[in-house]
């Protein structure tokens, strides 16, 4: 079973996304900020990370970079953010994220992204 680490500070979005992913048979681990995300990924057992960018304590860009550099460069990270401009997308990719999805989330598209990268 694929385990997804969902990093999202907004409670509603976290709840909503984790429930929908669980319904599709994924195991979901959640983190509320960037630091938690780095710590959890270090513990292992994570197959893919869905990372919000604007996070408290440590933002998504920094967290993604640390995971890629310190934990595993092979762990796929998909950035999720409400910033919809091209430069936001480029910034996420330059921090090591493998792909990018814009909020509001197009769920079928997100699923196919997950399948692509797992």
């Amino acid at each position, binding site marked *: 079973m694929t385990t997804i680490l969902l990093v999202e*500070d*907004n409670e*509603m*979005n976290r709840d*909503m*996304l984790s*429930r*929908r992913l669980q*319904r599709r048979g994924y195991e979901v681990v959640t983190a509320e900020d960037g630091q938690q995300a780095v710590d959890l990924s270090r513990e292992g057992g994570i197959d893919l990370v869905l990372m*919000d960018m*604007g*996070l*408290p*304590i440590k*933002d998504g860009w920094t967290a993604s970079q640390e995971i890629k550099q310190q934990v595993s460069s092979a762990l796929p990270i998909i950035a999720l953010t*409400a*910033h*919809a*401009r091209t430069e936001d997308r480029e910034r996420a990719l330059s921090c090591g994220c493998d792909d990018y999805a*814009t*909020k*509001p*989330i197009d*769920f079928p598209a997100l699923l196919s992204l997950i399948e692509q990268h797992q």
Partner: protein
Amino acid sequence: MNLRQRLTLSTLTVLILFIINAGMVFWSKEIRSESIFELRQAVSGQFQAATIQQNLINLRKAVLLLSSLRSTLNEMLTSQETNQALREINHLERQLQTLGKTVSFDTMDHFSRLNYEFGILKPLWSNFYHRYNEADYLHYREGDDREQAYVSTMQELKKLETALIKSADKQSMNINKLEDWTSLITAVVLLLSITLSIAMGLSVLRFTNNSLRTLKKGANLLGGGELDYRIPVTSNDELGEVAKAFNTMSAKLQNAITEVRRAKESADKASEAKSDFLANMSHELRTPLNAIIGYTEILIEDIELDDLDPESQLQDLKKVLDAGRHLLTQINDVLDFSKIETGKMTVYNEEFDSQRILQDVIATISPLAKKSENELSFIGCPDMPVLINDVTKFRQIFFNLLSNACKFTKNGQITLHCEYDRTTSPAIARFSVTDNGIGMNTENLERVFEAFVQADSSTTRRYGGTGLGLSLCKQYSQLMGGRIEVNSRVNTGTTFCVEFPAAPLGKMAPQALPNDVVSPPELTQQVNILVIDDDPVALALTKRYLHRQEYRFFMASTGKEGLSLAEKYHPDVILLDLMMPEIDGWAVLSSLKKNSSTQNIPVIVLTMLDESELGDAIDIKGYLRKPIDWIQLENLIHDILPDQG
């Protein structure tokens, strides 16, 4: 010397030369005609002298002949012959006198001597004829005195002739000389004129060329972008003036271009700010939309999977509702903000009881406070006078401040404190919102009222909001003639203090106020409400709300139906949608106001559009933007029908 002076001088010089020339010609003509006259006199004198000489010779011949005839033949003269001879002598004398008229200064002496000699000769000859027939007639002899007088006369006449010839020669020479001089002077004057004209022309040409070259250089440099180039001003002449004018023009041009550049920069900045604003808004709108779409999809999946748990579904629906409301607040904030930005926000002043309004706000906010486990308290001010200000904005300021406090405080204490300060002039109504939440550092405090700024970027994620709320509070306070201040310490809490001028009107707030949490105002239920709205969904929603609140209500889906129901039932309040087919809300409103039986019924207008200003102008009691905020509607009904409360 400037150009005008140069031109004037050269013109004057040429004019003077011309006058000299003209005078010269005139003078030489005078002199010449005088000389010619004298020449003519001299020539005429010569002719006359020659005639006189001939006559003298003839008369002498006659005398000599008669004398020899008298001595040889002793012939006598008739008296006629004597008279004839005497007439001839007299004639000669007259000729001599005529000649005397022609003499000039040079020949005067010669003529006088001739006249003198002839004066001796004439009586001798006259006497010869008178005595010719007489016995004592004197015969001509050797050395006769008559012959001597004749010879002397003849000599003087010849001298005069010579003098006359000399005089004529002299005049003729004078004329020639004069002509030579005149020609010479004319030539000199002409030459001088030409030289001067050329010199002046060249000088003017050089001056103009210099000016034009300097101007051209300046214009080229200016055109090439050297806006700070100035033509050096070295003189006070026309070039100097042109240079000054050019420099003034350059300075003005430079200023204008600087202005334009500045305007462009500020326009660029404004455009950048707009673009940031849009990016920010896009972000802020996407976040609640993400929840709305996501939860709605979950609910649809629940139904499709037949996984129906009513409790869980209710929770999900509440989340959708929350996110939707949040979105609406954001949209309203943005609209208000843009109104302020474009200067279209107006202040509608009316009398209101600040204490009652604040109690309403507390009631509205209390669910939010409860959610973050905060204790919300209200410390009223019993002697607070009625304020004259914009009540809607007043309400919104404290709604924003309180909801902000709830957002940044968990499990704490939030207090709204009112104070009427009479120690200042004018008196001040002071309201402060204090929390013991996370607080802010100095740096964040300075930027807290700027648009789109929250303490740090992660705050937005954690606490939500557009970052416009506090900015709106500040703008509103200023529009309302008041001010807002903030004090904060990290991890200790924050206090926002708002002050408005309060003119004491002798009116006090109508009731004493409890210093504690206030529950929302309740209305008795015997209120009749007429709803006029063409949208069946909106009508159904309103109907559900009114039903839940146990109001009595009548529904009309067209303006026409609404008018007839209004007349028939005389409702206490009419809720009127503005956008309707056939008869629209405005038409219904004016018909209601025209009819004496319905004109006093209070009307609340419902609309999708922001037409609050129109609403202010027309006699309506309130205005709600769709989707309707039910709490706001409740407050409005309560405002309109306080007696029912």
